[in-house]
């Protein structure tokens, strides 16, 4: 375990979170087409950042920084990281951020078609998920984690967490589609709003079940209870933000321009959604890490799960 590498991975994850916020600000300000150019803005590398160009070009600058940081992360991984699958995940992050940049260019060049904008927003979440995973995999707590005997429940925790993760991801796609289906001065499509509300209920059930099962079955295991508590708390905040975002968005078509309350709340809703997603990823990865019968490293290598395996560079005995 290399502490510098882990800190750098955390930095990349934090920068990615900031990038998601910057992207959400572009959408809420309806600034995506403030310049018809890409990758330059109005033919310039550093245009005068007035009006909505501040948000669009600012987003591009943050994205460029994240891209550079990701390149640095790949170099760092190939220099310091011994686990091949972690290095490969770093390469995947690099490909994802390149693809994300190209998708961003497509949104501008094709003038924000819904499918491309939604794909751009969805890939942003996947990239964030990847950078957070790299921060998890390079952390001391991941390396030092010891296997925990699984407490039997009606459903395994791995299953519950994975289900929660999938429902959150689908809900993020729905949310991205909803957000990009209408600008601030248009009404949102009723069908998508209903689908997103349905998704919120499903996520609440899915993530609630996973988190509560974790807290009940492993109440003394901070390695699991901490992400479960954070995910559950963020979910509560996210539901409140969702209602608030809906209320402010209802009135926005009558406004002369996107107003700050609507912008702040909808951007917070996007950001909190991303945090719910990654906190659930952390929980899921950790359950796979320490619970019986599962091992992330083996799974990523495509090998069968074995109790006695390469455990972060150490060999650990099987659980009895």
């Amino acid at each position, binding site marked *: 375990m290399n502490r510098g590498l882990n800190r750098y991975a955390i930095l990349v994850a934090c920068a990615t979170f900031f990038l998601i916020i910057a992207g959400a600000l572009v959408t809420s300000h309806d*600034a995506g087409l*403030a310049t018809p150019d890409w990758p330059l803005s109005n033919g310039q590398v550093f245009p005068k950042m007035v009006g909505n160009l501040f948000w669009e070009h600012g987003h591009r600058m943050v994205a460029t920084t994240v891209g550079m940081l990701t390149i640095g992360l790949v170099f760092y991984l190939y220099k310091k990281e011994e686990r091949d699958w972690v290095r490969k995940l770093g390469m995947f992050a690099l490909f994802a951020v390149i*693809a994300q940049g*190209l*998708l961003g260019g497509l949104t501008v060049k094709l003038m924000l078609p819904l499918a491309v904008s939604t794909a751009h927003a969805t890939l942003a979440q996947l990239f964030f998920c990847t950078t957070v995973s790299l921060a998890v995999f390079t952390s001391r707590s991941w390396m030092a984690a010891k296997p925990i005997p699984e407490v039997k429940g009606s459903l395994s925790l791995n299953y519950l967490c994975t289900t929660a993760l999938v429902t959150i991801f689908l809900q993020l796609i729905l949310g991205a589609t909803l957000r990009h289906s209408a600008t601030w001065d248009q*009404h949102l499509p009723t069908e998508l709003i209903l689908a997103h509300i349905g998704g919120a209920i499903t996520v609440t059930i899915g993530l609630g079940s996973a988190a509560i099962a974790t807290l009940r079955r492993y109440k003394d295991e901070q390695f699991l209870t901490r992400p479960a508590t954070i995910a559950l708390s963020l979910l509560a905040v996210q539901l409140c933000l969702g209602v608030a975002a809906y209320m402010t968005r209802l009135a926005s*078509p009558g406004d002369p321009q996107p107003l700050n309350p609507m912008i702040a709340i909808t951007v917070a809703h996007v950001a909190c959604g991303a945090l719910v997603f990654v906190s659930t990823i952390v929980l899921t990865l950790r359950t796979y890490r320490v619970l019986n019968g599962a091992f992330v490293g083996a799974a990523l290598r495509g090998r069968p799960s074995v109790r006695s395996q390469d455990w972060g560079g150490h060999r650990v005995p099987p659980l009895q």
Partner: protein
Amino acid sequence: MNKQTKVWLVISIALSLLALGSACGGAKGPDTNKNGGEATSATAAPPSGPTGTISGVISFNGTPPAPKKIDTTADPVCGQKNPNLTTDDTMVKDGKLANVFVYIKEGTVDGGKKVAEYTWPTPTTEVQLDQNGCHYAPHVLGVMVNQKLKITNSDATQHNIHPTPKLNQEWNQTQANGAPPIEKSFARAEVLIPVKCNQHPWMKAYIGVMKHPLFAVSSDTGAYEIKNVPPGKYTVVAWREGQTPEEKPMEVTVTANGAAKADFAFGTATSSIAPSLKMMPAIEFPMIGKH
């Protein structure tokens, strides 16, 4: 780097280049003149002989919504030039409504031919759309298919002009301060094309594109006049912007050298519903009671 990683690297670069290529190829030139105009069976020249006019006044019933102040702090140039910038979607003076687009939608010219069967020549004159004080002037305008639209920037800041048509080709172009006028045209008739500036999101205009010159926009006094109308019976429509644009039709008969009247009225009864109430269907369940 092992072999598997190299393969993925090559695939990713290839996909990236493909995406970039489609991005460059997807944004075709905005010149719509080459499209040759909307396919039409109209071949006859417009009828010669005496014509008439259609005129009227657009009224606004009820209390008009107060103009809303626009926050221009995002671009100080806008605030310096136009410190009292307000919304102009409902411009009412003494109960009369400006910026209503009135046009002949359909009808029969005396002699039996439909108005759509005639081909009017494209005017050689340009129609101007100016960006002045971070505000479009005029707010509503009409052009004929393939008529030149001259877009100017009178501000000391840059704008981007972004029409969002449904039938014509969408385009988005930046116009810096001091840049020469942009000349565009639209190849298909469309009522009406919203135009916005993505740099200053409050800036909005509407362009009516017609195959004939039989249209007008109400002035500050609510008055309008459509000139040179061939004698006949027509459906005249008054169009007003809004979340859901309103259209009010009226049957009008025009005689040679005659002056037909067509007054329209819009009002708060149909347009001032609070946005929250307008969105109430969002919480209805569409399937219930529909089977």
